[in-house]
């Protein structure tokens, strides 16, 4: 292990945000993260470029994919998510799922389908919008004819409509909670599957804008429900919904951007999900994608320059990759599939919508910022659902 020079230590003390003496827990947690990031950067060889460990990640993801159909024990209610995180991560890295494995995954996901047309988190579970969204997107990310054909459009349409509430919001499941995540999951599927262009579109869109405008907090970010605190994941959901239904008035996009700009961590370079919380690689996507999303609404190319894409890329590549494959939230915690997916998705945003240079070797494929599918898979699914 390299011992940092006194110059490097002095420089770190100048740059870190926690050099201004504090007493609360959140401050000392922040200090720990900054120190870990500093030490990691010290260990890196300044002569060598930072590399995306593509083969290692692909190898780990492929291994996880093989284990998946046999049941991943600890995360029972989120099996659709596991499939999506793995398949989309592989896609971003430019790897192709072997056709036999792809077929097994399709059949595995089919077992989550509930009688009422939605998907549950696993076999025997009742329909849930987040499970439905993830299963649907996993199939679109696989992108095979078999995957797309396995989707029961009529069932999905019925289930999504059933979840629509009087006030314009959506419930995640029968008797489940109502929040902006549910709306994003509903509109995400409805948007891609073409329901919003059908007669049922009116019912699905009704009062969505009204609900969304009640979610914007005092600081410009978006909460999960009316009165809720601004949060990266919910802000993404809210803005993506507004984009999907084409409502430019529902949210103050300018204020969203100002909120988002402040989420990039001064020292680490990655994003936090809320003010005074720690950096977390998954917000590379949830917050990072806000810039191209708002740009698509206000048409301004300059929006992409509002965040430091190089710093974001640097955080993901320097601090979040494990040498044996997979990515993590931040230094000091283990890898997991969720963070692997969203760190890579955020890297894609930094490279394709921000000004981060990928020098070819570190390049990941371009993701669609609304649906988080690689562009070719998005297009194939889009056309498929409109030909039926």
């Amino acid at each position, binding site marked *: 292990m390299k011992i940092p020079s006194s110059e490097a230590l002095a420089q770190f003390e100048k740059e870190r945000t926690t050099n201004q003496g*504090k007493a609360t827990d959140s401050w000392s947690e922040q200090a720990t993260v900054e120190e870990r990031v500093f030490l990691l950067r010290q260990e890196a060889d300044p002569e060598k470029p930072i590399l995306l460990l593509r083969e290692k990640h692909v190898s780990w993801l492929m291994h996880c994919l093989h284990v998946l159909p046999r049941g991943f024990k600890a995360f029972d209610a989120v099996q659709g998510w596991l499939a999506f995180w793995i398949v989309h991560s592989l896609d971003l890295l430019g790897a192709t799922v072997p056709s036999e494995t792809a077929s097994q995954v399709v059949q595995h996901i089919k077992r989550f389908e509930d009688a009422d047309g939605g998907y549950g988190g696993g076999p025997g579970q009742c329909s849930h919008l987040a499970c439905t969204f993830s299963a649907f997107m996993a199939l679109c990310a696989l992108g095979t004819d078999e995957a797309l054909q396995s989707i029961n459009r009529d069932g999905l349409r019925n289930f999504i409509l059933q979840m629509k509430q009087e006030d314009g919001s959506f419930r995640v499941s029968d008797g489940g*909670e109502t929040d902006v995540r549910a709306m994003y999951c509903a509109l995400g599927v409805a948007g891609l599957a073409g329901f919003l262009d059908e007669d049922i579109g009116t019912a699905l869109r009704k009062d969505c804008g009204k609900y969304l405008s009640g979610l914007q907090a005092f600081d410009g970010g978006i909460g*999960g429900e009316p009165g809720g*605190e601004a949060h990266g994941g919910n802000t993404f959901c809210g803005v993506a919904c507004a984009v999907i239904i084409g409502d430019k008035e529902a949210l103050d996009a300018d204020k969203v951007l100002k909120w988002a700009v402040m989420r990039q961590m001064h020292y680490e370079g990655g994003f936090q999900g809320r003010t005074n919380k720690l950096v977390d690689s998954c917000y590379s996507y949830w917050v990072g994608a806000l810039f191209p999303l708002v740009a698509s609404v206000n048409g301004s190319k300059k929006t992409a*320059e509002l965040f430091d894409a190089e710093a974001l890329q640097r955080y993901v590549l320097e601090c979040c990759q494990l040498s044996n494959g997979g990515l993590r939230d931040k230094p000091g915690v283990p890898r997991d599939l969720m963070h692997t997916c969203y760190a890579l998705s955020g890297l894609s945003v930094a490279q394709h919508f921000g000004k981060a240079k990928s020098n070819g070797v570190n390049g990941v494929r371009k993701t669609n910022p609304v649906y988080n599918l690689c562009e070719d898979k998005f297009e194939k699914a889009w056309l498929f659902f409109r030909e039926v």
Partner: protein
Amino acid sequence: MHGRRKGTRPSGVELQEELQQGAAAAELIRKALQLRKQTLIYPLDTSFREKYLVVERALETNPDEYTLWAFRREVFLLRCEHDSPETVLSLWKEELFLTTRALQRHPKAYPAWQHRLWLLEDAEVANHIPSEARLEAIKSEQKLSQYMLFKDGRNFHGWAHRMRVKSVLISVLPEHESQLEREELAFVEEKINDDFSNYSAWHHRSVLLPKVHDQSSEVFLTEELDYVRQAFYTEPNVQSAWFYHRWLLAGAPARRMKAHVQTRLLEDELMACNELLEIEPEAKYALQTKAQLLLQLKRGMEAEAVIDDLERMDPMRKGYYRYLRGQCHISYQA
């Protein structure tokens, strides 16, 4: 996923144990889901009741199993229809206690919070619970979120639950609405005083204050500015109070009307910022606020000088500062 395991990966014996626990948990869930496939018929036989215990155990350790919470609702409603009122009341309390146990271990499990809210709020449930018992439970409900927020002051599920419980209370006791809002504001203020960096508390202050404040907007603003200034004077490098402060300066909604912020007020705030900057010239948030104030006061050239400093100190946000500079030029012309 977040915070599930910190530190090094388990290996050897630890890994074996973890895999075994995972397998045991999965088995519980599988049995519970299997039970739900049976048609529910009252009366529930002994065999069913024995197996139903599995559902409870599964939920204590895996409260994200939303299907099992739905199952609990189905069984509870069935028993509401047929069992004696005393039994139903007792079952209701057991359900509430189950959510408490689940939330103790997993404070952020959406379906567990939802199930608890359902027990307290749902109209069909309310039909089967004596109103005094229900009211008593709702009145003391904030103790749970108080405890959860004591453990983690940023748990937004806890904060959201407080808002929902307050709504339920207001619907049951509408004449107490303004008192309930004030009590909530007192709780928020307590949390802020405990820790100025608790941004969740500041956020909820922004939601509550306009509902509670019954003075003219100018007085509201002046009092709030005094309050928040104490916070950022004590801890100038903590973002929370500054962001709240900026919202006030922009004319925070008071009683749904945006207050017109008088020039005199803005100038007072500018003076306060400058005083702080004399002691701490690199205080980034103070500088950002100073830039905003100068813009609002239409002193574009001075604002630009501050933005130059900011860009040097905070190069990550240069895109944003470039945008702010654009605003300066607009303000010259104003």
